[in-house]
């Protein structure tokens, strides 16, 4: 077995036993990247030298007996997280050569735990998209099928897991951007509770919805990563000061006493029959594990997409105003006036989808439209939140598909933004409600594309998600299935 194909927990164990060194592990990962990257295109920036130097330092630390939780383990992160040693592009031309002057809090936590960051992963520009086709650099491809989308916006992060290009990765999730590519690529992805993980250094798309979370090869790794990245941060006023449990303790066999809700609103029209089949089979496995399965209702689900596509662009239109060419990033050099400089910088620096959303958001916040759009959307958001409050009085978690279909071909829906927006319908509500959500591999389509199951729980109840996902993983029997990558 090659080192790169180990899980995070397995590699950690091998390092601790002294069977391998971090340098060996990192070299294995780097050669794996070199081998498969032309096919999957997951990375925007790779830091080979830095990774090897960090690996050597990690080996020294381990010998000195001061190894942190993730000491010497090579990881990769979505290019939306600020790194002081690597450029942070957000998948955008406007930040092509931007090296942040600081590390995001989660990056600092990873580094403090001894992790090695080998590179920055591809994403839709400013996390706006669900296929990575809006990445200004490279479009990652689904490791399970050439020419198929990896999902998005954390597509690179999911691909890096499925293709064994790092041991774990971080993504960000604003409307499903971790869970959807995790599902399409057959890996585990968790969007934690809003406030569970610091957003400081996560380049903002929609501040009230964004959350950093792990994408991993299995559920145990997800718990390990959550242990490291969670916690209150004084630099993020929206992070919550509530104790961080040992998430790996949640991985218990059996679901006795766990009540699982199945909302019919998530199994409605447009759902691919294969996806439904896989998810329903998964629900049966959870029942076999001891869970009580019951139907629950989330009546405002149909408004989620509309609410999301007002609130997220509104916040984005403001969050992206800082890319004005004045202090950093791309600046149009051929402008004769300030207004022209702004206009040319932003016209050339941003891609079409970003511009589309900035325009929608600007419109939604404009005088005369604010009440009808942004304000009304905020009110409906409260109703959606209340739906979940009611449901979590009746059950501990809600299960559903993650996406209406498995992965599709690159370019297939690229000209139909509305169709893409609608495909976010099953993941958006967790962000609007601020609750945790997770995608865990549940099966495959007939054509060999992965299909995930989504689990959502009440605020700060990540543990029940991990426990249920762990039980599905144990019973689904697909954990060892890997894509064929030359």
């Amino acid at each position, binding site marked *: 077995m090659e080192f790169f194909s180990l899980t995070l927990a397995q590699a950690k164990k091998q390092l601790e036993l002294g069977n391998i060194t971090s340098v060996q592990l990192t070299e294995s990962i780097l050669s794996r990247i070199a081998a498969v990257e032309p096919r999957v295109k997951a990375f925007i920036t790779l830091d080979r030298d830095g990774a090897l130097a960090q690996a050597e330092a990690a080996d020294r630390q381990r010998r000195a007996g001061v190894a942190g939780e993730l000491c010497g383990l090579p990881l990769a992160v979505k290019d939306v*997280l*600020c790194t002081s040693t690597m450029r*942070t592009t*957000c998948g955008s031309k406007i*930040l092509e050569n*931007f090296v*942040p*002057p*600081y590390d*995001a809090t989660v990056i600092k936590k990873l580094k403090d735990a001894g992790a090695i960051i080998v590179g920055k992963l591809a994403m839709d520009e400013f996390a706006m998209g669900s296929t990575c086709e809006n990445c200004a650099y490279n479009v990652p491809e689904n490791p399970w099928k050439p020419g198929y989308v990896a999902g998005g916006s954390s597509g690179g992060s999911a691909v890096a897991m499925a293709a064994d290009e790092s041991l774990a990765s971080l993504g960000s999730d604003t409307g499903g951007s971790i869970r959807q590519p995790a599902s399409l690529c057959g890996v585990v992805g968790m969007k934690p509770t809003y406030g569970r993980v610091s*957003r*400081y*250094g*996560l*380049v*903002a798309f*929609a*501040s*009230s919805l964004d959350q950093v979370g792990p994408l991993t090869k299995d559920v145990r790794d997800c718990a390990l990563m959550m242990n490291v990245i969670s916690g209150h941060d*004084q*630099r*993020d*006023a*929206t992070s919550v000061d509530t104790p961080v449990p040992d998430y790996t303790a949640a991985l218990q066999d059996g679901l006795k006493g766990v009540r699982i809700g199945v909302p019919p609103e998530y199994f409605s029209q447009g759902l691919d029959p294969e996806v439904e089949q896989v998810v329903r089979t998964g629900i049966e496995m959870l029942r076999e594990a001891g869970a009580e399965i019951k139907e629950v209702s989330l009546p405002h689900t149909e408004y989620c997409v509309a609410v999301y596509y007002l609130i997220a662009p*509104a*916040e984005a*239109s*403001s969050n*992206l*105003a*800082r*890319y*004005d060419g*004045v*202090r*950093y990033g791309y600046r149009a050099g051929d402008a004769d006036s*300030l207004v022209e400089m*702004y206009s040319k910088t932003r016209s050339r620096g941003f891609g079409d989808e970003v511009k589309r959303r900035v325009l929608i958001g*600007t419109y939604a*916040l*404009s*005088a005369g439209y*604010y009440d009808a759009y*942004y304000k009304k959307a905020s009110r409906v958001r409260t109703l959606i939140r209340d739906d979940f409050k009611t449901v979590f009085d009746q059950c501990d978690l809600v299960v559903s598909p993650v996406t209406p279909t498995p992965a599709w071909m690159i370019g297939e829906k690229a000209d139909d933004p509305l169709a893409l927006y609608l495909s976010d319908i099953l993941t958006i509500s967790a962000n609007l409600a601020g609750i945790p959500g997770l995608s865990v591999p549940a099966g495959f389509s007939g054509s060999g594309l992965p299909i995930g199951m989504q689990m959502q729980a009440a605020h700060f109840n990540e543990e029940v998600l991990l426990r249920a996902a762990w039980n599905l993983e144990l019973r689904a029997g697909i954990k060892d299935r890997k894509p064929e990558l030359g």
Partner: protein
Amino acid sequence: MEFETVIGLEIHAQMKTRSKIFCGCSTEFGAPPNTHVCPVCLGMPGVLPVLNRQVVENAIKLALATELTINRENRFARKNYFYPDLPKGYQISQFELPIAEHGRVEIEVDGARRWIGITRAHMEEDAGKLIHAEHEPESYVDLNRAGTPLLEIVSEPDLRSPDEAVAYLKKIHAIVRYLDISDGNMQEGSFRCDANISLRPMGRQEFGIRTELKNMNSFKNVQLALEYEVRRQRDVLLDGGEVVQETLLWNPDKNRTEPMRGKEEAHDYRYFPDPDLPPVFIDEEWIERMRASLPELPDPRRQRFMTAFDLPAYDAGILTASRELADYFETACATYDQPKKLSNWIGTELLREYGPERIGECPVRPESLARLLIMIEEGAISGKIAKTVFAAMLESGTEPDVIVKEKGLVQMSDEGALQALVQEIVAVNPAQAQQFRDGKTKVLGFFVGQLMQKTKGQANPQIANKLFRQALAAGPE
């Protein structure tokens, strides 16, 4: 036609806090460009604001001092617009739920007192500064000031004259200085004011078309700009014209208002609640803690000065114009028990050199001034000599006893020593002596003056008077 002036003021008071409103950078004025900055106030990608609670406390204090109603739930909002001195492309301010609303302060103009309504006060961050270098095509941005906390205080359109506007401005200025929440420095821009001004025919209810005045960085300029604008608008209206709604800048060199250059855009700031900042809840306990920390404010202190020290309203008003001056007065009063005389001395001698705001810079301690006045009472020096001594005190900060001793300024009260001089003066001025004896007693002043000249002002005037009366009454020898 008679017109009524309608003025409303928007005051921006920079809060006196060690660090900025949303990051840990220093708020110190005058540092080299872009040295008090960090990723947060530079608007780097990924950064988040964290509220400095001191700013909220300052705002609560102002609210309590101006009878504003404090909103228990406070929200910050984003005000979106593009400008190079605004790093994030939006200013974090307050919109729908400001910290406080519906307050008032009392002003006095020409003896008439009037309440002026305050619409609202809200917290916000300041922008940076553009520096336009001469002979260079580029402009530069200094972001040291970006993120400095401001309190915006908006008045009702209740002010009816430039005098009232300045009185109101001074009142708010005194209050923020008393509260020690702003240093109120208008030159450095830590206390700024914009004015909305319009005229309407006397007796009309609806407002006329207003202009907005900016760039008035002193009380004097506010007065001059408003007076100019009243004249200008009146002329326009009397000519049958219409005032154009526009923003005007006061040009202090040319003593006139001028339209702001560049096109006036109708800004749509697209305010919405800032999702990065959770609401701030202000509970009763917090308010009461702030209330307990409030100092005595200008108006109550003025009242107390009138009753406790038996001072005229005018004196009490001057002495309480700043907290420092009022403190100065009270400290001096602790050792010198003639408040009115002290007030006179401060009003004429001290304030001529140091205005109410600059008392802190005065080298003469209040105890020393009190000592000087006691020396007059005791007859050690004359009032006239005291002024000389005081001038020396202002220069060196030396105690009055030391100056009097060093310069040999002790008053001559020895009748024996003065008697000879008195006799001599009477002898060489027979004509004036005769005048006195003829009943023109006013001429006594002439003789005392002569004596003062000979003694370099050190003769005790009471004794001099007495001796001359005796000598002149005695008649020619």
